[in-house]
């Protein structure tokens, strides 16, 4: 190297660097939210079998992710998006960022547990459901035992002063579980929901900014002062899975109030203007494969959509899940039409 003149040295370096950056395989860009997590061996096996290298881009919280996709739709930042759920699908559709599904992936059957609503979602032409879960209340069992209080049974119970001051919710404007809880209560109570929320505010409900804030700062299980928190139905199961020392029973319990449970279904879709249509279809098929549907239960803490996939034993700690038909259902387009107005109304009624 020293014998070459400086310019020639530079040329050699540049060539070596350039050669290093040329990738051998085709690249599929996947846009996801911050909670996307699959075991590495599964992803590596997919890359080997399909000949496509996966390039995952995390774009923040689900709502942020959809907004970033809408802003950049002129020149999309990915080819495939995972993580758009039924509360944001309408928004994504009206912004025109989703492309049609390949014919082979349309109308795939979904698990029975998802009920009529879930089955209706499986008929989408531009979005493939991958996993589902419930947003509901979690209660700190030890706190309620110590204070000899019963858990609330209905939404109206929750609005009473003695329960309202025990609750922490998330701001629907900044948190997707917060939005889900608001959607559930609003679709169950109709117009009177705002009086209900005003009652909660008077009773002393706390509003946190995100799930992490509420769960780790305000939830009494982790040192806070509120024994009721809006979280996921799988959280008690995760508490057992990640318990230290190992527990056999979950320290939290799901509280399924009628009208206080939201069915959340996440899916994968192709982005309009994205490249690699073949690889995108392969990835979507991969997400519906039995191995991934099995694994995502303990990595993303959602239930599998594919029928006949074995439930992971730890998920039994979530207790008996409510039948979906008992919950008031909101269509994807209805959600999209009302979400923004309800967010603002919430801010007015509860926050200001």
């Amino acid at each position, binding site marked *: 190297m020293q014998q070459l003149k400086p310019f020639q040295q530079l040329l050699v370096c540049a060539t070596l660097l350039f050669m290093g950056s040329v990738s051998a395989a085709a690249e599929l*860009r996947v846009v996801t939210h*911050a*909670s996307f997590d699959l075991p590495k061996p599964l992803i590596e096996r997919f890359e080997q079998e399909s000949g496509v290298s996966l*390039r*995952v*881009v*995390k*774009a*923040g*919280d689900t*709502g*942020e992710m959809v*907004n*970033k996709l*809408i*802003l*950049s739709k*002129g*020149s*999309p*930042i990915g080819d495939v998006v995972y993580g758009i759920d039924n509360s944001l699908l309408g928004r994504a559709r009206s912004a025109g960022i989703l492309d049609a599904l390949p014919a082979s992936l349309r109308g795939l059957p979904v698990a029975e547990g998802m009920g009529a609503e879930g089955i209706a979602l499986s008929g989408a032409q531009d979005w493939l459901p991958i996993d589902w879960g419930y947003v509901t209340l979690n209660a700190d069992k030890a706190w309620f035992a110590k204070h000899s209080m019963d858990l609330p049974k209905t939404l109206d119970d929750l609005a009473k002063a003695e329960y309202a001051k025990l609750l922490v919710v998330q*701001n629907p*404007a*900044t948190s997707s579980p917060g939005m889900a809880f608001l959607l559930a209560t609003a679709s169950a109570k109709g117009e009177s929901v705002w009086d209900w929320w005003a009652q909660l505010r008077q009773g002393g409900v*706390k*509003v*946190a*900014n995100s*799930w*992490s*804030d509420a*769960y*780790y*700062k305000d939830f009494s299980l*982790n*040192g806070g002062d509120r024994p009721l928190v809006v*979280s996921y139905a799988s*959280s008690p199961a*995760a*508490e057992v*899975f*990640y*318990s*230290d*020392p190992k527990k056999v029973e979950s320290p*939290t319990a799901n509280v399924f109030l009628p009208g206080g449970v939201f069915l959340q279904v996440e899916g994968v879709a192709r982005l309009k203007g994205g490249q690699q249509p073949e690889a995108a279809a392969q990835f979507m098929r991969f997400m519906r494969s039995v191995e991934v549907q099995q694994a995502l239960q303990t990595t993303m*803490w959602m239930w599998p959509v594919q029928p006949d996939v074995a439930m992971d034993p730890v998920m039994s700690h979530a207790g008996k899940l409510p039948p979906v038909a008992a919950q008031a259902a909101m269509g994807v387009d209805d959600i999209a039409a009302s979400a*923004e107005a309800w*967010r603002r109304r919430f801010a007015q009624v509860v*926050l*200001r």
Partner: protein
Amino acid sequence: MTPSTRRGLNASHLVGWVPLLFILVWAVLPLARLGWEGWLQVQDMGWSLLWQPWQDAYLRGRVLWSVAQASASTGLALVLGVPIGWVLVRWHFWGRQWVVRALMLPFVIPTLVAALAVMALWGSWFEQGPVLLILGNLFFNLCLIVRGAMGGFDSVSASRLAAARSLGATPWRAFWRLEWPTAKPAVWAAACLVFLYCLSGFGLALLLGGQAWATAEVEIYTRVAHDLDLPIASVLALWMLLISGLVVAVYARLSLSRVERLRGDRVPVRMARWGNGAWSVGLSLLVLLALNFGPLAALLVRALQASPAAWQHAWGDEAWLALGNTLRFTVLGVSLAAVLGAMHGWAARASGWWRAMGMAPLVTSPVMIAFGLLLLWPQWLDQLWVLVCAYALLAIPLVAAPVAQAVQQVSPRWVDAARTLGATPWRAFWRVVWPQVIPSWRRGLAFAAATMVGEFAVTLLLSRPEWLTLSTYIYQLLGRPGALNAQAAWVMSASLMALSLLVFTLLDVRSNTKPESDARSK
């Protein structure tokens, strides 16, 4: 103007254009692009939109509260930090060097963990609200004032102080008429920085203050990231920019006063003894413990209480990836900021405008920059060099300000002497001016490294799982339920603190660590 200075001015302005272009491209352009997008959405509303933040009671309240809490925090930090800085520079005690090194640790802690640590310490006395928020602000920012004051008081000329004392001035009068005016530029720079950080504070305000006491930046973030309501967000960001710009202008004016001290004329540090300095040292350490180190100690205690299973869960494969990435990004970002910051500091040595422009990255809202970049160059946002540039952008002001100060303090006689002896302008700079600037530059680099490890706002850009850093990893742990995850988060935060302490030790400025012998000290 002599020919040498004229030539010197041209060269330095050319040097200054490189970092300025960098700031323009990465901070100003995205802001303008996002603002333009917002303007396109409300063209018919016209200029009346500009007054909306002041007409709407809620937004007005947010803006006024942001300014109020930033002013209160800055004022308190000044009142507490300046005396502590003076004590740390004048008195020596066992462990002083470690106290100075550990001052910057609050910066590296992720916001959620810091809020939990502050609540662990103060949560039983104060509820979520304005007082806790100001305590949280002090936790993060007191160290800035202390360091600024230390740098300022360090440049007091010992011979002048001795002359003042021998002419009959009491210690207080000597401080007020000689030491404080000398230290003022450095302290004002630090105060400006503290004000900007508190004003644009986002996570801390929500965690410790609650929704009722959120800052304007929270509104901007919510509207841009979650509502895509660009018009109001842009207008709000514009007003916050104007307010911050005012503060920056005041800082730029105040920081221009020049101070000259001969080398070797530093005031000697004295050993604190019972009856002579022990009270000052004790009181300073108590305040630092309460506000600065207390929450860190609470964090450390929780980490040490974690079970071995939690340590194992924390230090899995992902943790090592995160560690490697944090080091890699910090080194790359600090290197870039070191060069650009030094260049800007040199260009800004004599001009208030340049100094003010150097603060631009701190004045603009990070979420606006992130989303503006998304509009401008979406195809590049998942590349490594963009991430490094974003890190460097937020660190340039931190390096440029002390460098500008130090360059201003170098006497022009040195440069003239070098030039008359035959040195070229570059050689005169490199061999005469630069060695005198290095200590301030290193101070700036330590600060820059601290903010990079703590990852201020860079996470708003697109991130890739292979770019996992320690901060992001901690947030990932706190994104799932479970005692293992909670304990692992404490463990990783303590590890982060240890890593940063190592980085600060390496970047440490070799100041007068040992006290002078009794015969020479007073």
